[in-house]
């Protein structure tokens, strides 16, 4: 029997198991609520309405990917090894290489859903922040109601069928966010408030609001960040083979920070110093995936660039996964 048939059940089980961790639901909800809250939390616009909200949202999505990658990878690998379920599975007809790839793909599938949810929230939040000092409640209220509705739905499903609350809420949240986004597309209206001078007094007057367009250019920027998230995921999986949650988080955060600063720390020295040149090429360079500035400057990001960034991410991820496979192949599973 080939171990090919046992591959997809393992991917599917990983997809089922990861959202059942309360931490995943908590992180996802926090991210959505926080990004949704940015339009009324940020009270500066620095010359362009929405810029700060957009930049902060993308930064939160990036950081959220790191925070999600670590518990997911640890649950998929180190917890399984510690709990003994990895040993039980590896006693079945599945090779270690397929086990690890299945785990990576399962975790990445959840990461993709997470990124999708973050992208939709950023698109909604960006529209809500289009007018300085006047958050678009017509976008934000459906968003927050949607989050609440997902939890109520999950509770009802849990009550009626006994399905685990955390994963049900996670999937409900994903579905409801799509509906909320479609709702805001279908009903983009709102009221526009203008300040008008009447004699000595200034009055706020409400008019039928202008339709705020969706800034679709955000999607390629989010897609690039998702590629970076897959890299972080591979890195987390590599560390999770040997380490627990906290050391894995520390190591991944180290790589995250060094990768963010590699242009500053290494690129300048790369011309003169061999070690700096080697390290500059080996370290993940997250700047390739940070396109918020491009959005501000040019207003759009070409998909061809995202393709190049995805190629870089794929190359780097494959390298890390090969390293992880080599490590796992000789590893003892007790």
């Amino acid at each position, binding site marked *: *029997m080939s171990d090919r*048939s046992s591959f997809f059940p393992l991917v599917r089980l990983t997809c*089922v198991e990861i959202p059942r961790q309360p931490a995943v639901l908590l992180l996802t909800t926090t991210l959505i609520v926080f990004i949704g809250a940015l339009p009324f939390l940020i009270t500066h616009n620095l010359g362009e309405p929405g810029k700060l909200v957009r930049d902060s949202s993308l930064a939160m999505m990036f950081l959220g990917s790191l925070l999600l990658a670590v518990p997911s990878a640890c649950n998929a690998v180190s917890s399984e090894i510690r709990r*003994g*379920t990895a040993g*039980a599975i590896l006693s079945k007809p599945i090779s270690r290489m397929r086990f690890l790839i299945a785990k990576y793909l399962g975790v990445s599938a959840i990461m993709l859903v997470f990124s999708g949810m973050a992208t939709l929230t950023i698109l909604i939040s960006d529209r809500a922040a289009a007018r300085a000092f006047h958050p678009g409640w017509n976008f934000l209220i459906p968003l927050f109601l949607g989050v609440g509705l997902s939890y109520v739905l999950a509770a009802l499903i849990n009550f009626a069928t*006994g399905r685990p609350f955390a994963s049900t809420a996670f999937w409900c949240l994903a579905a409801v966010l799509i509906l909320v986004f479609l709702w805001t597309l279908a009903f983009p209206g709102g009221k526009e408030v203008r300040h008008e001078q009447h004699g000595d007094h200034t009055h706020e007057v409400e008019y039928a609001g202008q339709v705020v367009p969706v800034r679709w250019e955000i999607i390629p920027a989010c897609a690039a960040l998702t590629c970076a998230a897959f890299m972080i995921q591979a890195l987390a999986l590599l560390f999770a083979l040997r380490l627990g949650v906290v050391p894995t988080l520390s190591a991944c955060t180290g790589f995250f920070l060094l990768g963010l600063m590699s242009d500053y720390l290494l690129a300048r020295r790369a011309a003169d110093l061999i070690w700096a040149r080697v390290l500059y090429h080996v370290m993940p360079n997250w700047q390739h995936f940070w396109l918020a500035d491009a959005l501000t400057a040019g207003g759009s990001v070409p998909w061809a660039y995202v393709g190049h960034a995805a190629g870089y991410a794929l190359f780097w991820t494959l390298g890390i996964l090969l390293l992880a496979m080599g490590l796992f192949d000789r590893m003892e599973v007790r």
Partner: protein
Amino acid sequence: MMSEEPIVYTQGLQKIFKDFWRRPRARAVDGIDLSLKPGEVYGLLGPNGSGKSTTIKVLLGLLHPDGGEVRVLGRPPRDVQVKSRVGYLPEESYLYPYLDARETLRFYAALFGLKGELREQRIDQLLDMVGLAHTGRRRVGEFSKGMARRIGLAQALINDPDLVILDEPTSGLDPLGTRQVKDIVSALAKRGKTILLSSHLLADVEDVCDRVTILYGGKVRASGPIRELLQMANNLQIKLGDLPDEKREELLTALEGVLGTRPDIEPTRRDLETLFLEVVAQARRETGEGSGTREEGELAGFLQ
């Protein structure tokens, strides 16, 4: 026709656990030789830490031997083809806590490539066999230890394996469950399956095993057919049916004349397990089922 090649073969098997710096920390297995014939029930006996589970994990390819030779079903233990013919019940029931019993078996069945009606039939039969058919959507994380062992046993048999490796199979089970596991082991052996059973519960091993190896400190201390190992050449036992008092006295007097001393005589006793099973069976007839597991069914149809 059965192959004469051993199902499990180890020669001088060694396993040393090392620390982070690769320095030897403990010699868990030290030169173990095993050879399991097809269709036999083989017991690995020993106190905690004697090397039983380590040996099993080497046989499953989970640990790498540091010395010696290992072959399972004629191949290296990490071979995927080998694993498709092996069923393994780990020492602890390592299960995904959020899955229910049926989902758990469905997952393990899928790992063996079982699909559709065949898979569902096997799951139904195994759940009936281990007395968990009624647990519905209850998650295995909420199961008692005994129930978890039962679902663990079911997953070990889902692929109708040629070699069944059971690590402490009766740990955490009540006497009814223990009896059932022993019956399943005996039934599987009759069907020609080879069973390697590790336990420190001597009565369980004695009841079902054909041959045993006793380990201590990672070394083989005794090995052979269980009847030969338990036989005491200088002590004999005479079994008699019901005797009237006068006949008994007559027999004792005659024996005293031959032996020179009066031998001890006492009525035959049932063992505690037999008594317990009789009492519970009687109680079940009177009061019906309790909570938890239900009375187990027959050996699963596909295993018969």
